[in-house]
């Protein structure tokens, strides 16, 4: 029987939890009269104490199995903004059955009035002589959940890799006997819900939202000006101006054009930018009837590019000149693709090579092989690590944002050019912010911590910081 003072403490803990609005469930494990308790005093985590749990582990009810986990408690996970998380706390059992040892714990969960089912990931939790915490996710805020913890016991002489729980697969390379652990379940803890912590907007990302909306406003403002027919100055980009020259050279030499649209899949913005440039290149090759080779690494990219090139040939009135086999799938293996493209360059000897898109380590292999064939090479990538290789080995290189701007340059549509102006405004804003931050950081160092500049810098960084 629990003493009156201890019962009073338990009731006080429950009352505090209810008053705080946090669902707390306690299941305690009994210690029979004269039974052995834990060898060391167990520390109750501060998080539990704040939720109203007693600072000292309460005695267990006498009618429960002493070898079951003690004091199972569930709290909503305040750090989980999705509202789907919960934290499960429990203490190790008071007694271990003779001849056995505690191997670990297994978690069970029931939704609403359903049956308890084991939590599959992880299948079991290790045994430690302290309070365990397990974060559980995937809960719906409008359901109620209950949890139980099972202590897993195995024969004392069983090795650590030779046992598991029901439903767990035996390792194939296991030598020896596979032992199934005996489970001793605790009392259910719960019900609990995670509704109080489900958020519909992440306030930590508000600076990103404001920046994105400001940028979109700038884009739309310049769009409106472009529609009024105002001329906009654009700095010349040699790589874009050389596209027509490269196509003309290939036509004069009677050699094909090789177009590589990067190694990223179709959901990459750089691949889409590359496909847009391919459309413009295909129009020119259709007009001059220059052979076009487009080896693809991704089948979806291949499908989209076939459609783009076909439309280009239709637009100039030469549908018969279109060959769908000129855009083909090679392989999705990185260096297998590079080997195939290199072989094409050496055999077909294209007069112009276009490398537009996102590239990885193979960029220099492609560019150098093309350089040995004497082709004019125009590259464009937003992969900052590969830009130096393309600058070195290619005749022209579009760096970073120039790849995205190329479609606007080639089309010369006012609407597209307006986007470039908005980008420049964005760069001015970022440059100003960087300058202000650098000045504030310098002054903070000169003036010292605690000064007005250090506080200003702290606030400035807090506005920019995002998680």
């Amino acid at each position, binding site marked *: 029987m629990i003493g009156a003072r201890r019962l009073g403490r338990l009731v006080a803990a429950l009352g505090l939890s209810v008053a705080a609005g946090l669902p707390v469930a306690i299941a305690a494990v009994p210690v029979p009269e004269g039974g052995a308790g834990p060898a060391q005093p167990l520390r109750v985590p501060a998080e539990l104490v704040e939720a109203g749990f007693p600072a000292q582990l309460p005695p267990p009810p006498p009618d429960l199995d002493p070898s079951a986990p003690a004091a199972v408690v569930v709290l909503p996970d305040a750090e989980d903004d999705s509202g789907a998380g919960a934290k499960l706390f429990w203490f190790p059992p008071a007694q271990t059955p003779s001849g056995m040892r505690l191997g670990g714990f297994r978690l069970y969960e029931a939704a609403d009035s359903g049956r308890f089912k084991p939590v599959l990931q992880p299948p079991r939790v290790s045994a430690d002589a302290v309070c365990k915490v397990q974060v559980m996710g995937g809960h719906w805020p409008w359901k109620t959940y209950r949890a139980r913890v099972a202590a897993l016991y195995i024969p004392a002489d069983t090795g650590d890799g030779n046992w598991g729980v029901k439903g767990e697969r035996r390792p194939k390379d296991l030598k020896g006997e596979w032992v199934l652990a005996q489970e001793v379940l605790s009392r259910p803890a719960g019900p609990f819900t995670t509704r109080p912590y489900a958020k519909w907007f992440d306030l930590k990302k508000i600076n990103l939202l404001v920046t994105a909306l400001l940028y979109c406003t700038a884009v739309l403002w310049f769009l409106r000006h472009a529609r009024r027919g105002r001329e906009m100055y654009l700095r010349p980009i040699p790589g874009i101006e050389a596209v027509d020259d490269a196509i003309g050279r290939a036509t004069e030499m009677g050699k094909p054009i090789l177009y590589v649209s990067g190694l990223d899949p179709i959901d990459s913005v750089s691949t889409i930018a590359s496909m847009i440039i391919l459309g413009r290149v295909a129009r020119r090759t259709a007009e001059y009837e220059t052979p076009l080779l487009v080896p693809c690494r*991704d089948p979806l990219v291949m499908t989209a590019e076939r459609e783009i090139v076909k439309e280009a040939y239709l637009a100039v009135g030469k549908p018969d000149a279109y060959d769908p086999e000129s855009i083909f799938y090679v392989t999705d293996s990185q260096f297998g693709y590079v080997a195939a493209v290199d072989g094409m360059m050496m055999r077909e000897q294209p007069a112009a090579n276009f490398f537009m898109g996102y590239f990885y380590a193979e960029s220099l292999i492609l560019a150098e092989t093309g350089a040995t064939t004497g082709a004019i090479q125009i590259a464009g990538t937003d992969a900052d690590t590969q830009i130096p290789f393309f600058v070195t080995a290619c005749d022209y290189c579009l760096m970073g944002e120039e790849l995205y701007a190329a479609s606007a340059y080639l089309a010369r549509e006012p609407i597209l050019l307006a986007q470039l102006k908005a980008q420049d405004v964005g760069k001015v804003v970022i440059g100003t912010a960087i300058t202000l931050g650098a000045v504030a950081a310098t002054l903070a160092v000169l003036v010292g911590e605690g000064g007005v500049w250090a506080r200003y810098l702290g606030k400035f960084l807090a506005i920019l910081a995002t998680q």
Partner: protein
Amino acid sequence: MRRTLPLIITFLAGLVMFVQFFVPHKLSQDALKYMTDWMRIIGTFALVLGIGSLIQRHTARIRQRHRDAPYSAVALCCFLAMVVLGIGWKTEEGSPFDWGFTYVFMPLDATMFSVLAFFMASAAYRTFRARTPEATLLLVASLALMFGRIPLHQALDPHLAGVAEWIMAWPATAAKRGILLGVALGSMAMSLRLLLGIERSHLGTGKEG
């Protein structure tokens, strides 16, 4: 409708994913997982198209007795061999498929990667020439960086490692960040163009603006 429907789908999907980024609720996280799973499924089906293209291209070359027909025959034979081995003897460790992957494919892959070292040397030989002041600066910085990275740098000059680290930490990082800022803004602008339907040529409509 053929041109309008893809644009509507693009706009709605883009708007949903934009909103999803800012909503941490479980419904939003599950929507993201759902979209990601569907992308993988569609990508897998698209692989069928790619394999069809591969087989069609190489069989056409063999049939036409193209000068590169032997390469196409090798490619097709290897492709079919791996398919038969994978289906017949599975792909577990120790299977013939695993043997082909480990002892044929991976060494070939590593060989192509290792060719990069030689290409780097040839590119460096062509590039590092003091023709202009900027090229001279590039040459000096590159030499300092290379000598600062090799194990002999302590014997040559103990300060070279510090110079190399300074070059990587300050001017190189500054330039890299500048490029990344431009890339970020450019990709935002490109994404906005795609969402609003201003850029449509990737859909194969042949019409811009």
